[in-house]
C-alpha cells in the first residue's frame, strides 16, 4: 500500500467543472409545464406523460421526510430539472465530446472505461451520451442501454415494469423522480442467460444546480444472472444540487443480481435515493453500496423476498467527514418461507461527520423458517463525530431467527502502536486500519473500483 502525500494534500480532487453548454434546458424550477416539456422534448409516448403528470401532482402534496437529516436548506426551486448536452446518444467512443472524455480522464475512469469500452455506458448530465453495447452481450439477448432509449426501443418492457416496485407515492423524492426522470440504466437479461462480464456505468453530475433524476430498471429473468457496477463522482459547487435517483430491480425465480455502487458526491450534493429490489423463489439479490461523499445521503436499499428460499444481502460502507451526513441502511422484507437476509454495514466518521444506520428487517407471519442477520460496525475517529444505529426488527412468526449486532469503536491505540513500530507513519497506519476495516467491502469490488476506492479513502484521511 502506498500513500501519496501530494495527493492527500490536494483539495477535493474531483472538484472541477467542465465547460459544457447545455443544448437544451428547462431552466430552474418545476411546474406542470416543465414536466410536459421534458416529455415532449424526449418524444415520449402518451402513457409516460400521464405517469409523469400523476407523479408531479403526488409530489406537490407530499411532505418532506419526517425523519433523519435536516433537508430544510434544499431549495427545490433552484434546481434545473432537465437539460440536454448532446442531442443524441453516441454509439461509439469517438463520437463522445472531448470535454466529456476529459472529465472521465480526470476522475481516472479511462482504465475501467478502456477495458469495458464496448460494454460500458456512461451517464453525463441528465442523459447517457455514450452507449455501446458489447456485441456478445447483444448476442446473448441482453438489453443494456439508457432508460430513455429503452422507452423508445422496448416500450412494452418499460411499461410492464416501470414504477411497479417503486411507486410515485413511495416518498416525495420518488414522486419527483417519476415526474422528471431522465437517463438511468435499463437492463434486461433473458431467461437462463448469464452475463459473463460486469456491466458498468459511470454517473456524474455536472453544471451547477443540475438535478440528476436517473431512473434505473433492471430485470433479470428466470435463471439468469448479472453483475452491475456503477460509480459516481461529482464536482464541487457553491450551490446545492440534488441527486434523487430511483432504482428498481426485478430478480425472477432462480436468478441472481449483484448491484454495486460507489458514490463520491461533492460536499454540496443531496443524495436522496430509493432503491428497491424484489427476489422471487430461489433468487438472490445483492446490494453493494459505498457512500463516500455528499452533503446529505438518505438511502435505504431494500429487497422484497417474495418467493421461498429467496435471499437478499446488503454490504455497505459510509464515510462521513465534516459537513457530511450519511443516513443509510437497508430494508429486508421477508414475505415467504425459508427466506434469508444479511446486512453488513460499515461506517467511518471523522471531523464531525455523522453516520447513521437506519434499517428495517421484517419477517411476516407466512415467512416461517426465515433468517435475518444484521451487523453494524462503526469507527468514530474523534470526539466531534457522531453515529447512531436505528434498527427496526420485526418478526411475526415463531420459527424464524433474527440477529442484530452493532459495534462502535475508535481506532485502537494498540493497533496504531504496532503498525507504527514497523515504521508506518500515524497517517499510513490509520489508513491501513481503515482499509482493513472496509476490506470485506472492497474485496467484492472489481479491481479498478478497489483501486479507485483506495485513492478516495486516501483523500479522505
Amino acid at each position, binding site marked *: *500500500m*502506498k500513500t501519496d502525500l501530494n495527493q492527500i494534500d490536494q483539495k477535493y480532487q474531483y472538484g472541477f467543472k467542465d465547460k459544457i453548454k447545455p443544448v437544451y434546458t428547462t431552466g430552474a424550477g418545476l411546474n406542470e409545464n416543465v414536466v410536459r416539456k421534458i416529455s415532449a422534448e424526449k418524444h415520449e409516448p402518451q402513457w409516460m406523460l400521464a405517469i409523469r403528470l400523476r407523479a408531479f401532482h403526488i409530489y406537490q402534496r407530499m411532505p418532506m421526510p419526517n425523519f433523519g437529516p435536516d433537508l430544510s436548506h434544499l431549495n427545490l426551486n433552484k434546481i434545473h430539472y432537465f437539460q440536454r448536452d448532446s442531442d443524441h446518444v453516441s454509439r461509439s467512443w469517438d463520437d463522445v465530446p472531448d470535454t466529456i472524455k476529459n472529465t472521465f480522464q480526470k476522475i481516472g475512469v479511462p482504465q475501467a472505461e478502456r477495458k469495458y469500452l464496448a460494454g460500458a455506458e456512461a451517464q453525463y448530465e441528465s442523459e447517457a451520451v455514450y452507449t455501446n453495447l458489447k456485441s456478445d452481450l447483444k448476442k446473448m439477448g441482453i438489453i443494456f442501454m439508457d432508460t430513455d432509449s429503452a422507452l423508445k426501443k422496448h416500450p412494452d418492457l418499460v411499461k410492464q415494469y416501470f414504477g411497479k416496485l417503486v411507486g410515485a407515492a413511495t416518498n416525495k423524492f420518488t414522486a419527483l423522480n417519476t415526474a422528471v426522470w431522465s437517463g438511468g440504466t435499463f437492463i434486461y437479461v433473458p431467461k437462463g442467460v448469464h452475463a459473463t462480464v460486469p456491466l458498468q456505468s459511470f454517473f456524474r453530475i455536472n453544471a451547477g444546480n443540475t438535478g440528476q433524476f436517473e431512473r434505473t430498471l433492471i430485470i433479470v429473468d428466470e435463471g439468469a444472472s448479472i453483475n452491475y457496477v456503477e460509480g459516481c463522482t461529482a464536482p464541487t459547487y457553491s450551490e446545492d444540487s440534488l441527486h434523487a435517483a430511483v432504482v428498481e430491480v426485478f430478480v425472477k425465480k432462480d436468478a441472481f443480481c449483484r448491484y454495486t455502487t460507489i458514490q463520491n458526491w461533492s460536499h454540496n450534493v443531496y443524495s436522496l435515493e430509493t432503491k428497491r429490489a424484489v427476489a422471487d423463489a430461489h433468487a438472490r439479490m445483492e446490494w453493494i453500496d459505498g457512500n463516500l461523499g455528499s452533503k446529505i445521503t438518505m438511502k435505504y436499499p431494500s429487497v422484497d423476498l417474495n418467493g421461498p428460499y429467496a435471499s437478499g444481502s446488503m454490504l455497505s460502507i459510509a464515510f462521513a467527514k465534516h459537513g457530511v451526513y450519511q443516513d443509510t441502511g437497508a430494508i429486508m422484507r421477508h414475505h415467504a418461507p425459508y427466506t434469508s437476509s444479511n446486512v453488513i454495514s460499515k461506517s467511518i466518521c471523522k471531523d464531525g461527520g455523522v453516520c447513521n444506520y437506519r434499517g428495517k428487517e421484517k419477517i411476516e407471519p407466512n415467512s416461517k423458517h426465515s433468517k435475518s442477520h444484521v451487523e453494524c460496525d462503526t469507527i468514530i475517529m474523534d470526539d466531534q463525530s457522531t453515529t447512531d444505529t436505528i434498527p427496526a426488527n420485526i418478526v411475526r412468526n415463531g420459527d424464524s431467527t433474527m440477529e442484530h449486532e452493532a459495534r462502535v469503536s475508535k481506532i*485502537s*491505540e*494498540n*493497533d496504531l*502502536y*504496532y*503498525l*507504527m*513500530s*514497523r*515504521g*508506518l*507513519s*500515524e497517517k*499510513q*497506519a490509520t489508513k*491501513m*486500519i481503515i*482499509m*482493513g*476495516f*472496509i*476490506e*470485506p467491502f472492497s474485496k467484492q469490488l472489481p479491481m479498478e473500483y478497489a483501486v479507485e476506492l483506495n485513492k478516495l479513502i486516501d483523500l479522505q484521511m
Partner: protein
Amino acid sequence: MSLVINNLHVKIKENNREVLKGVNLNIPDGEIHAIMGPNGTGKSTLVQTLMGSNKYQITDGEIIFNGTKLNNLAVDERARLGLFLGMQYPTEITGVKNSDFIKAAMEATHPNHHLTVLQFLQRFEHCMNFLDIDHHYADRYLNEGFSGGEKKRNEILQMMMLKPRLAMLDEIDSGLDIDALKVVSNGINHMRAKDFSALIITHYDRILHYVTPDVVHVMMDGRVVTSGGPDLASKLEKEGYAKLRDQLGLKIKLVDDE
C-alpha cells in the same frame, strides 16, 4: 555505533508508578544481549520505552541510538532509524493482509531501497521457508486467529524482512514448543551481522541454549543489577533469582516472593 542507555527513569503514565529506576546499558553493534530477571522487574517496560510506547514516560536519563537521542522521537521515527520490537502480545488487525503489511513496512523503513513485487515475493518466500511458515499466512490477516506460536514466528518473519539495526525481542520464547523455539532461534542467529544487534528479554535460559548471547544482564526492581557472559544465564537457571539477589546483597522484594 550502538545503543547507549544512561540512568533511565521511567514511570507508567496511567498510575504514575516508577518502573525503571536508573537503567544503564550499552549494546555495541554486532552483539546479542539478553536481559533476564524476575516478573515485574521492568524488562518489558524497558523495551517498550525504547520503542516509544506512549504508555510510559521518561522522567530522567537518555537513550542514544547510533548517535541520535531517542527520548522525544515518535514510534515510527524510531522504527525508521532501525529499531524493531518483537512484541510479547502482537495485536491482530483484521482486513490487513500479512504480506501487504510487511511490504508497506519495508517501504517505510527502507525508503531508498525499492523492491519490485517479484523481488519482494522471492524474499518473502525465502524467509517463510526459513521459518517453516505455511505460505498461506501471506494472505491471512495480520495475526488474526494466529496461535501464540504463530504470532511469535510472524514477529521473527517481520524482523527478517525488515532487517532492523537493533531488534528487541520481548519474551519471544514464551509459548513456543521446542521445534518452534529452534526455528525462532535460527531466525535470530541468521540475523547476526556486524551492523545488527539484538536485545532478548527472557525469563528462562532455554532460548539462550540456541542463541548464544554475548552479554547477559540481570534486571531487578527497575535496574540492571549485574551483567556477565552466557554462563550467567545457566547459573541463574540453576540457582534462581532470589539467591542472586541475596549474593548481591540487594534488599528487593521479588514479585513472586510469598
